[in-house]
Structures are given as structure tokens and as C-alpha cells.
């Protein structure tokens, strides 16, 4: 947006600036959509598909259900509001603020509301996996539809991870993630069943470009 300002100043031939320079913040609250709803979107997330094996499951000696793991990528270049900022952003004059991460779950039928042990997010940061377990991911540890559930990154560990995420975004302008749904005990059934639902994370990120004319 700041570029138009330069264009407006030029016709009368004045331009100057002080210590702060010509900088700006651009931010978005951006939801990575499900591929089922946005088939043309390159950054979409495949549906979560968990196989519940068709065997009796003993509550005393439960069968382990393989967790479903879905990989996806948050890419700043996919975000319309960042087009201008990314042209100016570099590690010398830029900062990234990873403000918040929330997620929504949709498409879970009433008979699919199984127990769940945890939901974890695995960020690929500086070539290493960093896992964050979502605190109290669902009500009563039961898989259910959710809207805008916060992934709290506010404690010391969370802040460290946030800082690493910001560095990763500043360097690569994209973030590779995996989400892992680890179900708990499930009720017995004579045949295999699939739970198919969507996971949509929403990222609230600001890009600060401190001096576009330096």
C-alpha cells in the first residue's frame, strides 16, 4: 500500500523521510482451506481420514488405533494480502509476528465422536521437527466439530516455538507442518470404519517491513 503514497508524492516532486523510514505492517488472519472445499487451491489441506479397525476392542486391553497424520504447508506467498509486503520483505528490514494459531474441525458425524487422546502439531523448523501438543484440544476428549479452537503458544515453551516459527517464516516465507490426531479407545464394531473430516488451521500473522526505501 505504501507504494501508492510514493506515486502521490512524486507529481509535486517531494520525498523525504526521517529515522523510521517508510515502513509498514501487513497482517492477515488466514485460514488454510480444506482441499474438499477448495480443490483449486494449492495450499489446501487433505481431509483427515482415520481407519477404525473392524475388530472387537476390549476396553481393558484396547487395540491401538493408528493415528492419522496429515502434512500441509502454510505459505505466505499464497496469501493475497501479503503480495506487496513479500516484495519488500527480507531478513534485514523485516520482521514476522506469529500472533495466533487456531483450528476448526468439521464434518464429524455424531456416530464418529470417538474419544481422542491428543492432537499434536509438528512444525518443521530449521530442519528439525518440533512438536506441540494442543492443550485441551476438544471438550471431554471427544472428537467433535469445533470452530476457532486456540492452539495456545503462550507459555515459555510456546513462546520459544513461536519465535522459531517467526524465524522460519522470515527465512523461507513458508512453514511445513503436520497434524496428528491420536484417537483413544473406540467402541467395537464388526467391520472397518473410516472417520473423514476436515481440519482447517487459521494463522494470524503480521509482516513488518521497516524501510522499503533503504
Amino acid at each position, binding site marked *: 500500500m505504501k507504494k501508492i*503514497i510514493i*506515486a502521490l508524492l512524486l507529481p509535486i516532486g517531494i520525498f523525504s523521510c526521517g529515522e523510521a523510514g517508510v515502513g509498514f505492517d501487513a497482517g492477515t488472519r488466514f485460514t488454510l482451506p480444506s482441499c474438499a472445499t477448495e480443490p483449486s487451491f494449492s495450499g489446501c489441506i487433505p481431509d483427515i481420514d482415520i481407519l477404525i479397525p473392524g475388530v472387537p476392542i476390549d476396553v481393558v486391553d484396547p487395540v491401538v488405533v493408528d493415528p492419522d497424520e496429515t502434512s500441509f504447508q502454510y505459505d505466505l506467498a499464497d496469501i493475497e494480502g501479503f503480495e506487496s509486503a513479500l516484495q519488500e520483505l527480507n531478513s534485514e528490514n523485516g520482521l514476522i509476528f506469529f500472533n495466533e494459531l487456531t483450528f476448526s474441525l468439521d464434518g464429524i458425524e455424531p456416530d464418529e465422536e470417538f474419544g481422542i487422546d491428543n492432537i499434536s502439531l509438528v512444525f518443521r523448523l530449521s530442519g528439525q521437527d518440533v512438536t506441540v501438543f494442543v492443550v485441551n484440544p476438544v471438550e471431554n476428549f471427544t472428537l467433535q466439530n469445533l470452530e476457532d479452537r486456540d492452539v495456545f503458544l503462550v507459555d515459555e515453551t510456546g513462546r520459544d516455538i513461536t519465535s522459531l516459527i517467526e524465524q522460519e517464516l522470515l527465512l523461507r516465507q513458508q512453514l511445513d507442518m503436520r497434524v496428528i490426531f491420536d484417537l483413544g479407545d473406540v467402541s467395537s464394531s464388526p467391520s472397518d470404519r473410516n472417520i473423514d473430516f476436515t481440519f482447517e488451521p487459521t494463522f494470524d500473522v503480521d509482516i513488518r517491513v521497516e*524501510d522499503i526505501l533503504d
Partner: protein
Amino acid sequence: MKKILIATLIIAPFLSRSQYDVESLLNGSVADAEKILEAYSEPIYLGFGFGMNSGWYNTAKTHKLLGFDITPTITFARIPTDAQFYDLNGLGLTELIPVPNENGSFQSPTALGPNLKPEDLPSIAYEDANGNEVRVSTPTGIGMEEYLDQDLNSPIVINAMPSAMAQVGIGLVKNTDVVLRIIPKIEEPGDYEFSMFGLGVKHDLKQWIPGLSLTPFDFAGFAGWNKINSKVFIDENEPDQAVEVSTSGFTVQGIVSKKFWIFTPYLGLGFATSSSNVNLLGTYEIDNNNSLTDPLSFDASASGFRGNLGLQMKILILTIHADYAIQKYNTITLGLGLSIR
């Protein structure tokens, strides 16, 4: 970064074309974008317009027949304190949502306001076509006072819009001077276009008022109109994209002066107006399916009383003058010229 660059339009295009980008602003709301840009840039255009109203004269005395003067001037239009900020929340935005800065303030600097860091600027927010929230901070001011004070260590620190003029005054019949300011259209294809025309008339009024001709003062009436048209092309790959600005100033004055040896103090009282029209021309794609043509247009205008006090010093044919004008944007004018007859 510390730098200042005050240039004429002629050298303005040295700034990189890659720094221009307008689509992201237009994505939000064209009508609201106009309000923000008008509030942001108004002091520049008003300052420039009131600056153009200065320097027309440095004495009430008119030339003898075919006498003439050539007088370049430079004027600084002081930016009023209340023109250094605008209230983002008070603009009446209908689609863009004002977001306060980290201190909860919606005050945003105008172009000639202070140079603030992004965290000190309020933002605007809107929802893009995909339903995602987008936030962009408002533009910062250029921080002229800060630069003069801290970087140049200037003894005079004023926040002012500079402008420069050159004019020719010619004496005609009946103690009437015609003053011309003309720059024919100059252009660098694909870069810029610029032209200026100004016409002023100074007429001795003493001759028409019985008894006044006996007084030891010169007394004249003056009317001057000046217009500058400029156009700067934004993107060399998009030849229709340009910012076009037309700025005009008009003033009517009564002038009194009295010569003492080589010094001539003068006083002017009257009325002045300044108006600018700014147009963003060209076709801009705002997303994959939509585009806008000539999307922005806004005006900046003001008018009111103008009074000025100045002093001319004339040594043979050389004149030096300075004056201070009180008007909506007060101006300081300095001039150096040649005056014959």
C-alpha cells in the same frame, strides 16, 4: 535510514518503478481508499497551492512602460499543526475497518507529519474475497522536522512544503504590469509530464483615487492565477498507469509599499485559494477476475484571508526580497531578481 530528497518533478522519476504498487490498496475499498489518501496527502497539495500564491510581487510600484523584471523565488508553506495528523476513525470509512495502534490511538500522520514506525501507526482492516481478514498499517509521514533537527542540525526547524517559481513581469500602459509564469509542457515519455502557466496583473490604483496620488506611498491591486499540471507514470510495463495532479492557486491582493533609499517594505491584504485534483489513472487488477479503471480521484482545496509583509532591497537592477504571508498555510518567500525600469 536517514535521507532527504527534495526534488523537482523533473528529476523525480529517479525513484525505482518497482516501488509502486497500488493493487493491494484498491483491494479493500475504492471509496475508503480515496478518503484515506485524501486525508494523507491534502497538506502537500494545499501547501504547494498556497506556495504558488506567493512571490508574485515585491513592491506595489509598477514598472514603467516596457520595464520588466525577472524574479525566481522559493517559498516554504508552513504546515499547520492540525494538518500533521488525521483521525483515521473520523474519516467515515464504510468498508475498511480502522484499527488503533498499540497505544490505542487512531491518529495517523499525514504525508507532511512525523515519521513514525509501523507499530505506532493505526491500521485498516478488510476482508478479502476468500473471507480472510487483511490488515495494513496506514502510511507514515515523511518527518521533515525530524530530519532538519536531528540530521541536518538546522538552526531553523520548520515543517514546510517547498515550491519554486520563476516569473517575468512586464510594464504596460496605464501603470499596469503583467506577470507571467510559464513552463511549456516538458515530458519524458513513460516517465513524467509537467507544465505550468500563471498569469498575474498588477495595476496602480492611486491614479484612480482622487487625492491619493499625493500620498508618498505606492498602492496597487493585484490578481494572480497559477496552475501546474503534472503526471507521473507508475509502471513502465503498464503505460496507462499514472498519477495525474492538477494544482492551482488564485489570489487577489491590495498592496501598499514605500521606498526608503534601497529598501522597500510592502504590505499586502486580500484573499487566496488553493485547489488540487488528483487522479489515479489506468487499469488495475485487484484480483484474478476483476479490474478497476481510473479508480481514484479526489480534490483538496482551501481558501481564506491572505496578508503578507515583506521587504525588498534594490541595488541598481538587482532585487532581493523576503516576505511572510499569513494565510491558511503561512508562507515564507525568498526571491532574487533583476528589475529594469
